[in-house]
């Protein structure tokens, strides 16, 4: 059962996520019925599922929203900013309710508020229905429903029988099945639907309520007609319909008459007052998996463990392929070589495909910001238009997660300090609304995310002043704009007091840079006074594969991430070890060095020259002394496992083409261990 609850929570999260973007869309296009319907459906589905899994508070709240959006659907209520605000608030509360461990505060307040705010429109359940019933004197009507689901309806996870049962339960019904080719039972086993139902219903439901029974079906799949009892003979729409479809031979009106005769008798059997409630409960069992119509793409959730397993198998395949290739070359069989070439190509495609599975579009992250940008600009009385480009650009899930907070920092800064208040913008001859543009695109093996605002830009004069005050530069020092901008990202350059001092770009830019560095990314800032600021993030597409340089230390292959290497050169032994201080000379500077042979307790070699690798990570500069450089290697990182927690020099291993292993050096740990101590 827990498993089901978990899957419900996951699905509910996704629904709420969808809800938020729908709400924001609705705010811009209040007339869009499609969006209103989608929101209604989400609330409805959530309500049903919440009831099934015992999330009572959630059921209660979604019910209120469902009612509100039903009124919007029917045009009784208009979309307002206030309403969107309240619903967004509601969404947050719903989200917190999913967290069963920390029960959310009771939401009586919000429900009460909603009720009073949209009162007259939402009353309690019974009142609402009574009102509807009073519209029609008898409270009941005869409906004709024509229901013909598409052939592949089962693939959508729907069973037409359910809808029929539901319709039957809502009143007194007469049902005729028009089966094509085979019987319905047979169609069901074959999972092909070729049946049309003709349902006559005498019910207390309104036409809308009846349509709700077929909520999950497309508009083309069902028609609901209300049949006016006394005017059957008139040439009405439904009769036209009949004539076109079935009316050959017999009179359509007669046919309908015959069908509905006797239906209206014994009406007292039909429940009236509770009808609305009942149907709600029944519908609430509707499947969560069938979400709104806007996302047609079919998404499957797969645990990352399975993906890792797939990656393992793929790497194994690559390695086996390589040794097969080597063997074939020895045999010198041309036919075999062609075959292997083919397999090689397929394997490469397979590998790329497997890697792609870990990638998700940046859209999933940017959608989150939509909301925050909206709230923030409101809070700060600024008007901001968000433009997004390349939201389908894909990036590793881990990377995407890691850039969430840096991206938020940057966006906050852009709105808070970059974009000016409307009045000021008009004075400057700019448009009233500021524009925040987020663009994502590929660049080689990297993904670039650029955040551009057309605000006031960074005041470089003030940055310079600040840098002088802080002692980063001397007053008469020549410094380029780019260098000044780099200073902003210095740790300690920004303190809380100078957020206001430096007009803009204060908050934790060093943190942003650090977080990006940690995943192998970088940040560049460009700014121009009154034209705006661009922040450009350069990110690796994936973390499980990194570009490394392979080094050799006494037969051992060691990998160092290419990004961390500043420079490599050969140096004569004596020049390295001449000082006792473990420092060597590099570009007019002394940098500490670590000899990997010594570190790994290998016998010292007697080479005349050694290879010096200058490592530069988080601005910690030091040198590695190794035997030789072997070359670049695209490393698929694999963890070493629990046995090696005791020796943290290596952060993992990678399988080489020949099946051998190379160890990935943890340069950071090495620095802390060897240089600082």
């Amino acid at each position: 059962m827990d498993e089901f609850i978990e899957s419900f929570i996951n699905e509910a999260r996704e629904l709420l996520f969808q809800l938020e973007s729908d709400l924001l869309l609705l705010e811009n296009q209040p007339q869009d019925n499609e969006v209103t319907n989608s929101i209604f459906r989400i609330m409805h589905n959530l309500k049903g599922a919440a009831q099934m899994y015992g999330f009572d508070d959630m059921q209660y709240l979604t019910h209120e929203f469902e009612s509100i959006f039903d009124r919007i659907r029917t045009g009784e209520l208009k979309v307002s900013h206030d309403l969107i605000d309240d619903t967004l608030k509601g969404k947050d509360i719903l989200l917190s309710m999913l967290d069963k461990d920390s029960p959310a505060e009771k939401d009586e307040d919000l429900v009460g508020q909603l009720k009073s705010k949209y009162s007259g429109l939402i009353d309690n359940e019974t009142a609402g229905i009574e009102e509807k019933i009073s519209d029609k004197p008898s409270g009941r009507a005869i409906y004709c429903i024509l229901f013909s689901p598409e052939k592949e309806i089962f693939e959508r996870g729907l069973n037409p029988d359910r809808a029929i049962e539901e319709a039957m339960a809502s009143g007194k019904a007469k049902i005729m099945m028009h089966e094509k080719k085979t019987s319905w039972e047979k169609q069901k086993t074959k999972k092909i639907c070729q049946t049309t139902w003709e349902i006559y219903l005498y019910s207390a439901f309104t036409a809308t309520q009846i349509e709700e029974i077929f909520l999950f079906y497309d508009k083309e799949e069902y028609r609901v007609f209300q049949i006016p009892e006394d005017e059957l003979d008139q040439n009405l729409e439904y009769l036209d319909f009949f004539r076109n479809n079935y009316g050959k031979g017999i009179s359509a009106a007669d046919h309908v008459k015959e069908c509905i005769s006797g239906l209206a008798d014994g009406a007292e059997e039909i429940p009236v007052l509770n009808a609305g409630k009942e149907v709600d409960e029944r519908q609430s069992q509707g499947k969560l998996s069938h979400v709104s119509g806007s996302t047609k793409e079919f998404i499957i959730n797969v645990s990352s463990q399975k993906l890792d397993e797939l990656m393992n198998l793929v790497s194994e395949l690559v390695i086996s392929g390589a040794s097969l290739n080597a063997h074939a070359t020895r045999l010198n069989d041309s036919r075999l070589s062609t075959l292997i070439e083919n397999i090689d190509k397929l394997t490469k495609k397979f590998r790329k495909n497997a890697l792609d599975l870990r990638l998700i579009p940046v859209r999933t992250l940017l959608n989150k910001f939509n909301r925050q940008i909206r709230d923030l600009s409101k809070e700060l009385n600024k008007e901001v238009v968000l433009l997004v480009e390349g939201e389908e650009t894909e990036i590793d899930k881990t990377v995407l997660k890691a850039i969430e907070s840096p991206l938020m920092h940057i966006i906050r800064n852009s709105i808070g300090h970059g974009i000016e208040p409307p009045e000021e913008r008009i004075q400057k001859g700019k448009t009233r609304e500021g524009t925040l543009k987020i663009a994502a695109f590929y660049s080689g093996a990297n993904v670039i995310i650029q955040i551009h605002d057309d605000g006031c830009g960074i005041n470089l004069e003030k940055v310079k002043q600040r840098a002088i005050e802080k002692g980063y530069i001397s007053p008469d020092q020549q410094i380029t704009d780019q260098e000044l901008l780099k200073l902003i990202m210095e740790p300690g350059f920004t303190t809380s007091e100078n957020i206001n001092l430096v007009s803009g770009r204060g908050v934790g830019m060093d943190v942003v840079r650090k977080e990006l560095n940690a995943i192998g990314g970088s940040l560049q800032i460009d700014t121009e006074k009154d034209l705006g600021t661009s922040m450009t993030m350069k990110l690796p597409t994936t973390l499980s594969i990194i570009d490394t340089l392979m080094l050799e230390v006494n037969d051992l292959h060691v990998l160092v991430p290419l990004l961390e290497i500043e420079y490599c050169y050969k140096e004569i032994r004596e020049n390295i070890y001449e000082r006792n201080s473990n420092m060597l000379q590099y570009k007019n500077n002394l940098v500490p060095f670590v000899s990997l042979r010594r570190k790994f307790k290998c016998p010292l070699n007697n080479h005349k020259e050694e290879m010096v690798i200058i490592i530069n990570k988080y601005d910690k500069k030091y040198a590695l002394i190794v035997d030789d450089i072997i070359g670049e290697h695209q490393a698929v990182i694999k963890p070493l496992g629990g046995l090696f927690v005791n020796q943290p020099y290596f952060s993992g291993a990678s399988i080489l083409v020949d099946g051998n292993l190379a160890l990935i050096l943890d340069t950071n740990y090495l620095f802390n261990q060897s240089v600082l101590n």
Partner: protein
Amino acid sequence: MHMKTIDIEKKKSYVNFSIGKENFAIIVDDVLEIINLDQLTHVPNSSDFVLGILNYRGNIVPVINLHKRFNYIQHEVRCDTVIVVNVMNSENHVLMGLLVDEVTDVIEFEYKDIRTVPDLGLKYNPAFLEGFIEMKEKFIMVLNVNKVLSVSELAEINDLSIGEIAKKIENHLQPE
């Protein structure tokens, strides 16, 4: 800890191998494959028991030197047989390789035939053993793989404070 139910009257197959002069047996359920050690990567500064790592079907598998584990003095014998075993480590399966001198054969016996080892005079921890059996006038020690290859014990993290362990693990953690 995961518990297996054992039918003590059912014959089970065991891999019989030697380390030094002693004979050992491991139940075949725990054994994945017996391979030749040809590509071993030594990991500098790792524990004494760990000879290195090898690539076993795309998995990084540590190879354990059982001579060291059992405090035997290793004579210059060239041994290159590795038994790849599946070890249960707090609900997780971990693959490990055991370097042994020679795999002799596969033997069958019933669980109830296993006798308790007197814990006097053993060079190693008696908890490593299920017990011993007598077969063909030889004594064969039946190993408990999960105990011999307990990850936390092999990694010697018992000697460290909790803080140090946390730090080490943090340093070691792979990005997801």
